[in-house]
């Protein structure tokens, strides 16, 4: 069986390597992907959206509809894990050994976590807010925010992190982030433009249209960050505790 698998993988690998010969070179301006659309984005996106980071402007503005459903996919993944794992009534047999009873042994970890968590959260907010000018944005900032909560839950225990951020609130906010995204898009619809055409906010906020695009992107990124934060935390507490949220790793 193993030899058959090895043979299949070897044949497929050779085929893929042969196919990879036809791929364009790295950074080739004549490659099909960068002939038709890239010029437009490189030349026009700053005038249209006043966002220097083209990746952010493509992700959140030109392809905003795409990004909204990526957020919905993350939301669905989190909800699915919750449905499969979360159990409230029946206690299952513990496979995992309980954490050792050594009071005071975790004090170094807990102090370091208390020092690091505010720094991580500040950096995550910077990443979300500064995604227009530097690498980053809603997904990355949300993941860093979520991992700060995970660090709290790892170094203390899940109960302590859940005491800070209740499970009901986690689920509420994870839906709220997606809804914030959709609401910003729908508001554009009600202001007489297309869905997620942020230019509609210009008259309402009293700013020029490119700036309205920039502000709309910021709002969208905040929605993405809230959803990703809550889903990451919810994934961790469900996976690490096996669904009964008592102590975890």
């Amino acid at each position: 069986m193993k030899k058959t698998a090895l043979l299949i993988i070897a044949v497929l690998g050779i085929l893929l390597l042969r196919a990879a010969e036809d791929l364009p070179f790295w950074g080739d301006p004549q490659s099909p992907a960068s002939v038709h659309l890239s010029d437009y984005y490189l030349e026009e996106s700053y005038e249209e959206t006043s966002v220097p980071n083209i990746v952010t402007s493509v992700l959140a503005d030109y392809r905003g509809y795409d990004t909204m459903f990526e957020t919905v996919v993350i939301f669905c993944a989190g909800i699915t894990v919750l449905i499969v794992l979360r159990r409230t009534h029946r206690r299952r047999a513990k496979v995992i050994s309980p954490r050792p009873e050594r009071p005071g042994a975790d004090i170094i970890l807990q102090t370091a976590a208390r020092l690091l968590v505010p720094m991580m959260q500040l950096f995550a907010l910077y990443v979300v807010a500064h995604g227009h000018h530097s690498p980053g944005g809603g997904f990355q900032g949300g993941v860093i925010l979520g991992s700060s909560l995970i660090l709290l839950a790892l170094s203390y225990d899940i109960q302590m992190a859940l005491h800070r951020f209740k499970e009901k609130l986690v689920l509420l906010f994870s839906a709220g982030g997606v809804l914030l995204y959709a609401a910003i898009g729908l508001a554009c619809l009600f202001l007489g433009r297309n869905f997620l055409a942020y230019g509609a906010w210009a008259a309402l906020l009293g700013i020029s249209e490119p700036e309205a695009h920039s502000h709309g992107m910021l709002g969208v990124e905040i929605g993405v960050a809230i959803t990703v934060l809550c889903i990451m935390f919810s994934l961790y507490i469900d996976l690490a505790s096996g669904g009964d949220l008592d102590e975890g790793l």
Partner: protein
Amino acid sequence: MLDILVIIFMVMGLFFFFGTTVGIVRFPDFYTRTHAAGKGDTLSVMLMLFGLALYNLHHLSPATLLVSGKIVIICVVVFIASPTATHAIMDAGYEAKVRHWSRPGAPKDPQDNSGEKQ
């Protein structure tokens, strides 16, 4: 002048990195290896980052000062996080009762198997 300082920091960082590598390869057991990795890594990363922060100050302007400040903040984070991670790994090994090394001829410690105390 600044160049000489940068070179000194970088070479010291590389030296401690080399020491870390030799320590990981040559030390006999889990605890001493983790000790070498934690200590040497933290010091050498901080030295090299500090050298980079100084190198960035060749053209003194608010922008380069900002970048250097960010690198110094990375130094602070590494100084907090890296020893803590080493401590956590070491503590997990202690909980899992990894046996420590002792000299071949040394008298046998009665509590050796439980991994309690050397």
